[in-house]
């Protein structure tokens, strides 16, 4: 089996070289699935330690309907179940309208808003949401990292890139975009986010929310990759 070559030696710091990647066929897929499984196991162990209450134990989590993303739409309780931070946060659409050049916004807040909009928990910003997601995805694709805050011109405010939850949210949003419109550029972003999250082995980079979302992302991403792989081999 090929060792999956796209592991970040130092997540949030290193940048992987994706140009001119060789065709490796089956061994690359085997390496990818093994790496993702290994990462899910690491996240599972982390979660098992963190989740004291029985109703949120990992087995229940795996079976729970709220991880079946298609069923989450219009289910207003799902966000509460996810225990996302700042879910009481008022969606920031109006805040954006009031922003003036030089303003700063929080990446996590935007992604949480987009996440909630996806499930109909808040009003969808339409084209505005698409543009925001596009800008954040661009940051990830070009720099392979996300800053916790950006100026209105989308310039990183500080040189700190370890907000794991931002990556997990972006990965999930990209995956759902792919499922909606079938555009592989969204899955591309998701896979790059997946490489980064899978490379985390330091528990200090995780909290409950980011670990749940990362775990969910990796499982869902693997499911889509497996389906595509089966489609290619037919």
């Amino acid at each position, binding site marked *: 089996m090929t060792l999956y070559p796209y592991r970040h030696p130092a997540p949030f710091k290193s940048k992987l070289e994706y140009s001119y*990647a*060789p065709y490796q066929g089956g061994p690359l897929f085997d390496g990818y699935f093994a790496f993702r499984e290994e990462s899910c196991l690491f996240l599972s162990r982390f979660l098992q330690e963190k989740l004291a209450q029985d109703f949120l134990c990992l087995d229940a989590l795996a079976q729970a309907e709220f991880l079946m993303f298609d069923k989450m739409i219009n289910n207003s309780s799902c966000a509460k179940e996810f225990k996302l931070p700042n879910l009481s946060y008022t969606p920031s659409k109006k805040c954006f309208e009031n922003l003036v050049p030089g303003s700063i916004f929080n990446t996590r807040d935007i992604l949480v808003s987009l996440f909630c909009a996806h499930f109909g928990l808040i009003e969808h910003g339409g084209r505005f949401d698409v543009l925001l997601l596009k800008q954040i995805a661009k940051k990830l694709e070009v720099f392979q990292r996300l800053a916790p805050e950006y100026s209105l011109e989308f310039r990183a405010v500080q040189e700190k890139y370890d907000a794991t939850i931002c990556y997990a949210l972006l990965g999930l949003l990209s995956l759902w975009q792919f499922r909606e419109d079938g555009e592989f550029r969204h899955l591309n972003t998701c896979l790059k986010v997946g490489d980064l999250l899978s490379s985390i082995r330091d528990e200090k980079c995780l909290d409950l929310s980011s670990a749940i979302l990362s775990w969910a992302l990796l499982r869902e991403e693997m499911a889509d990759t497996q389906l595509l792989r089966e489609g290619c081999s037919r």
Partner: protein
Amino acid sequence: MKTLSSMGLLFFPGIRALLYLQFLIENQWLPSVVVIQGENHLPQLLKKYPSSFWEQFRSYFDYQKDMDFYRREYGFETLQVSERDINSQELNSILCRRSEDHFIFSGGGIIRRELFRTGKTFIHTHPASLPSRRGSTCFYYDMLEGKSCAATTFVMRPELDEGNILAHKEFQVPRISPEWSDFYDLIFDPWMRAQVLALTLRNYVQTGSFLGRPQYPEDGHMHYIIHPILKNLAISKFLSD
């Protein structure tokens, strides 16, 4: 042979630039000048693959004809700059002194505004349909969708993959065996580009100008370097049995 007096070739040493030259010559055209950007790394690339690889695809790219061959055979003017970087000061100075209005771009980075200030027109061929697929490694996204691939020639502008579209053509993706999978990056991509460049120059020779249609970036999407998993899936769709 007809020398295109207002057309130069910025030769970024590699298969793409050689294919551009090959297609120009096949169409009986010679560039007024060829500016060679930096060292030629092609011999190392050729050695990286067995000769059977290059022989297999010789109908696309004749690996035995290098820049020295074309220069010897056709005697066009060449200039050498030391750096491969398209934005080098040396190249900029040369372009300022040259009389040619148009230069075919074959690589070496993203052209910065300073180079556009030379007043020259830069012609580039992108390996996908524009404006719908802007960005990098776009033909793999086409392959993923099981479609034909395409190339589009356009007049470069400081904004990435914008500027008037000059020609566009679609291509069937050849099926290959897994051991030759680098064919798509190394040969198929530049071969498509060279075909469409030739089409563009045919129009130019007939009309004496670059007649293009504007493109609007909002009509398309930016694509970033394809993830290796997606690239593998894309190639898998076109492997021969």
